[in-house]
């Protein structure tokens, strides 16, 4: 008996320690990255960094205004295209997806979820950039949307499934049609969760680089034309970090800090959305 007990305590203790160490490593990694970014990048953050465009190599000064605006536009495009499709697919899967078609859609979504983003980029290039004859922000937005859709579809589905069945029945018994029950009652109850999924999805694609290399390409000038190549923070970082100049490296760190801050804000917003609405509901 006591040997067994000892063993149990030993295993329990080891596991607890192990899990503790692993989570510490995870948090430590985040802290190290953030600390490093701040140390290397914060000093370059000034007004002109946010308001000026890049200057030719060798000159000092300039900023990444074009990349910040470009990120906003391309991620905005991706959200515009990806959110409705992703949420719609998720609703469909949760509400009507019990048959063969549902199974297939779910399978495709899971495969897409695991597809490397660079592969998505290649497809976007083949289907959009090549037929159109030139790189464009639009193609970049579509590529990012394609990354977002499967993720959102699955999150939405999970969130909708969390809504108690009794709620759905109550609405139907009240004379709600099925579609109205799905939208007005079920989706609204799951809204906080869906919103969180959206924010996490946006945060994830905001930092994507690979699929944009083949689509948005990058642009040294300020551009808001969605059918032209466009710069994003991630592309800017890629160019600056792999370039030969110290000034560029400095700018890359600063841009990385801005991007990281953006993602952090989105993640925090997602947290907040989940808490403020769901505290009462569940």
């Amino acid at each position: 008996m006591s040997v067994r007990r000892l063993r149990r305590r030993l295993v329990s203790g080891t596991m607890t320690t192990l899990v503790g160490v692993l989570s510490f490593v995870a948090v430590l990694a985040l802290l190290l990255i953030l600390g490093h970014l701040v140390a290397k990048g914060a000093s370059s953050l000034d007004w002109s960094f946010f308001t000026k465009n890049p200057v030719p190599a060798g000159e000092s000064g300039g900023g990444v205004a074009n990349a910040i605006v470009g990120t906003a536009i391309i991620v905005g495009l991706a959200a515009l295209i990806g959110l409705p499709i992703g949420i719609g697919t998720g609703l469909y899967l949760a509400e009507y997806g019990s048959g063969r078609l549902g199974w297939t859609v779910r399978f495709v979504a899971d495969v897409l979820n695991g597809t490397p983003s660079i592969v998505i980029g290649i497809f976007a290039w083949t289907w959009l950039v090549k037929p159109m004859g030139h790189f464009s922000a639009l193609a970049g937005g579509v590529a990012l949307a394609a990354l977002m859709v499967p993720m959102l579809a699955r999150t939405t589905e999970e969130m909708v499934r969390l809504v108690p069945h009794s709620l759905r029945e109550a609405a139907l018994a009240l004379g709600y049609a099925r579609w109205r029950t799905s939208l007005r009652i079920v989706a609204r109850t799951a809204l906080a969760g869906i919103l969180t999924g959206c924010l996490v999805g946006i945060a994830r694609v905001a930092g994507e680089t690979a699929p944009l290399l083949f689509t948005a390409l990058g642009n040294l000038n300020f551009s808001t034309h969605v059918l032209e190549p466009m710069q994003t923070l991630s592309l800017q970082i890629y160019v600056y970090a792999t370039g030969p100049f110290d000034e560029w490296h400095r700018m890359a760190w600063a841009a990385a800090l801005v991007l990281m801050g953006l993602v952090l804000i989105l993640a925090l917003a997602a947290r907040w959305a989940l808490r403020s609405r769901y505290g009462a509901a569940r």
Partner: protein
Amino acid sequence: MAPPADARLQLETARLTALYGRRAVVKDVSILFPTHTVTALIGPSGCGKTTFLRCLNRMHELSEGGWITGKVLLHGEDIYDPGVDAVQLRRRIGMVFQRPTPFPTMSIYDNVAAGLRVNGSRPRAQIDAAVEGALRRAALWDEVKDRLRHSALDLSGGQQQRLCVARALAPEPEVLLLDEPTASLDPTGTQRIEELLHELKTRYTIVIVTHNLQQAARVSDYTGFFYLGDLVELGRTEELFTKPTKHQTEAYITGRFG
């Protein structure tokens, strides 16, 4: 002015059999629910009371594999006729479930108004009046009149259940179906609901499923005893409880099984 005789035959089932797939869980049940009466359905767990109730507003067919044979007549018209729109029908037959099911994203007011709004838009004043009327009839108005815009989840369990009654009443249904409405309530909450039924029956035809025999005796005019999907006995409540004609009924109400 007395209503014509057949107007009193408001709701009626004729040889109703309810199935899940190939398994019949309600068998060949014919009951007549006279207008403005309370009928209680009792019987051991799993005997098909809920399923029967759900056939009366066509909720049963929404369950996986659910279908029926036989008829359910509302004012002599079969509600299962192909021409009848089930969604429209459910607006004429209110239902309250065992557990309170307030819509969590809606305020108290919006919960009660939900069934009204779904049936076409109408003037604001009219909705206000209907909401107040329904809350009064559900004996909840005084407790919530100052916080109609608060979340329905701020209410206690018993209040939530009365809110669900109000929500069912607001669209002015003809029939009210209650599936163990007091199962999750304390004695006070239970008493409120029972008092409510006495008042409501002057306006609605009520069918209530209950596990509580005293409750059935207190609130109902007629009682039906279900056993393994069969309607064993149906009669005036005081007769069924004092002089049951079937030995199964007697065994059940004297507590020898179930």
